[in-house]
């Protein structure tokens, strides 16, 4: 597999009079290979947008090496720009233009046939709203228009910064399907997000960033497997007595809410046998697989600081539509 995006040791510091020096990206590495749908996950303010801006030549990195489709960026970015569709932070469009006219203008500026405009409007589901003014669009419609603009070039590499922002659940699902079909057609996709469930659903690979640094990377299932602590959720009639029995059997167990969490067991039958032998019948026995959210919280250090105590049973998110804003947790 060939690298489509490579970032090594990217560093970017912002200087401003009001807040002084702020290290936004601090020695960050990223590798995206051809054909991946790569999630770029991190809480708000962790440096995702800054990384993408540096990659696309919009801000100057302090140091680091970057390539896009094999060309060093930003120096030789113009060579491959025609094959890279990108949106960085919700782009602002000219409110007076219709969606169609907005795209036609970009198509012209980039030397793309104007017939492509109708195709991309169709792809993002704005087909019959294209002749309305952008200022009348909802946030989600603007986001779709932004994605459409990135697709205009029929890119080999698609870079989307928080594309699901402002989309309704159905919109997120459509976006997911769109990205899957793009990936199936050989487009490499890099999607940034602070929305965990979304990344878990769309992406096959993930890189997690926290405070400007990479804290995990790899296939989504591998990143999850690396954090599997082999815990079991057990429901029985008398949790306290069950804990004592399990301790006697040299297992680690704690009461959590109305249930037990048993850790360090690779074989669940051990638990049901130990309890069953003493007449305690197990009502529920569920392996606690880590989802991306808990891995993410663990890696980005948001978990400990979270002001809302999380219960074990709540750990898995309602699939698909979960939107968790981790900003508060991280900054607290």
């Amino acid at each position, binding site marked *: 597999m060939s690298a489509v995006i490579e970032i090594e040791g990217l560093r970017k510091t*912002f200087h401003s009079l009001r807040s002084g020096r702020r290290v936004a990206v601090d020695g960050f590495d990223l590798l995206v290979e051809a054909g991946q749908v790569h999630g770029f996950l991190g809480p708000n303010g962790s440096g995702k947008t800054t990384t993408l*801006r540096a990659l*696309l*030549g*919009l*801000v*100057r990195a302090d140091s680091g090496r970057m390539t896009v489709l094999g060309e060093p960026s*930003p120096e030789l*970015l*113009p060579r491959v*720009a025609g094959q890279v569709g*990108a*949106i*960085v*932070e919700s*782009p*602002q*469009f*000219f409110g*007076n*233009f219709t969606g169609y006219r907005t795209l036609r*203008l*970009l198509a*012209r*500026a*980039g*030397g793309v046939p104007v017939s492509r405009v109708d195709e991309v409007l169709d792809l993002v589901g704005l087909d019959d709203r294209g002749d309305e003014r952008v200022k009348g669009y909802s946030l989600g419609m603007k986001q779709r228009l932004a994605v459409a*603009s990135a697709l205009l*070039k029929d890119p080999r590499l698609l870079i989307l910064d928080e594309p699901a922002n402002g989309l309704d659940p159905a919109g997120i699902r459509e976006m997911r399907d769109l990205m899957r079909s793009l990936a199936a057609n050989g487009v490499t996709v890099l999607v940034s997000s602070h929305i965990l469930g979304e990344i878990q659903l769309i992406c096959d690979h993930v890189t997690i960033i926290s405070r400007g640094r990479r804290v995990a990377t790899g296939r989504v299932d591998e990143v999850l497997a690396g954090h599997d602590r082999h815990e079991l959720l057990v429901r029985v009639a008398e949790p306290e007595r069950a804990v004592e029995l399990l301790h006697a059997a040299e297992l680690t167990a704690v009461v959590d809410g109305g249930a037990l969490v048993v850790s360090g067991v690779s074989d669940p039958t051990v638990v049901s046998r130990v309890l069953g032998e003493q007449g305690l019948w197990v009502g529920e026995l569920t392996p606690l697989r880590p989802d991306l959210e808990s891995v993410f919280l663990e890696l980005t250090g948001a978990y400990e600081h979270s002001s809302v105590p999380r219960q074990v049973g709540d750990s898995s998110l309602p699939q698909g539509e979960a939107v968790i804003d981790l900003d508060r947790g991280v900054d607290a």
Partner: protein
Amino acid sequence: MNLVRAELERLSARRFVQLMVVLLVLAFAVTAATTLAGSHKPNADEMSSARAQAAEARRDLEATHQECLARQSGTLPADTDRYFPSDCSEIDPIRQDRLPIPADYLPGVFNFAEQAQPLLYFLIAFLVLFGFLVGASYIGADLTSGGVVNLLLWRPRRLTVLAAKLGTLLGAVLVLALLASVVYLATFWVIGQAAGLPGRLDGDFWRSLGAVHGRGLVLVLLASALGFAIATLGRHTSAALGALAAYAVVWELGARLVLEIVDARKSDLFMLSSHIGAWLNGGARFYDEQLCRGSTDFPYCEGFYTVTWLPALLVLLAITGGLTAAAFAVFRRRDLI
């Protein structure tokens, strides 16, 4: 080329540009309509009376001059009632810039030859303001709204993108200014022909009008580039407006006062407005009483100095060129957020 076409579409779709064009057309229509309403074609009686009055005025001038000379040479006794300059050549009709002509005695008659130049100055002043504001808002709005970032994601060549914008701006402003001035002058020419007097439209007239026109267009382009450059440097439309207001208050008013207090020599040379005037008029004369201080030819020292059009143009070009170059240099390296 594609880039320029796209930029042209953006430029013409800007509400602000449309508003300014409407204002231009409106100001133009109002001026033309009031001129037309207040003018009529003079009849034969009016003409002959005006001719007679002009001839008499010229005779008066000549008579006064002769009287002055006569008193100076002592042929006539000094008259206390009337004032005569010590140097009679000052009122010599031959040395006057312009002599009374019949048109001066035709109230309510529009005379194209007489009015064309002031009308053109008004149009140029409007177009200079138009160019500056449009130049500033065109790039300023694009920088703040992220339009430039959008474009750079498509064409990651900053200097090309900025140059396409500036080029499109200057081209569009030039075409608009040319069009506006031609339509404007043609309209008033028609008014002169149909409901007034065309006046003396000889080669000299057209040459001097053409010169003002050409220099005015250069000024309009310089103002547009200046607005564009300052807004680029300051990242906002308001940067250009602020710079303009600050310059006018701090420098043209404040510094002028200070320069007067400290008795600086030829202080007008430090003012951009002097150079603008000198360029537009083909030269300008300024007064500085200090030039005469300690001067040996005292009684004859008039205290005037001139700025010719070439140094004035060089000053304007240097300032605009310098700021534009700075804008490109800064834009090439800046973080675009």
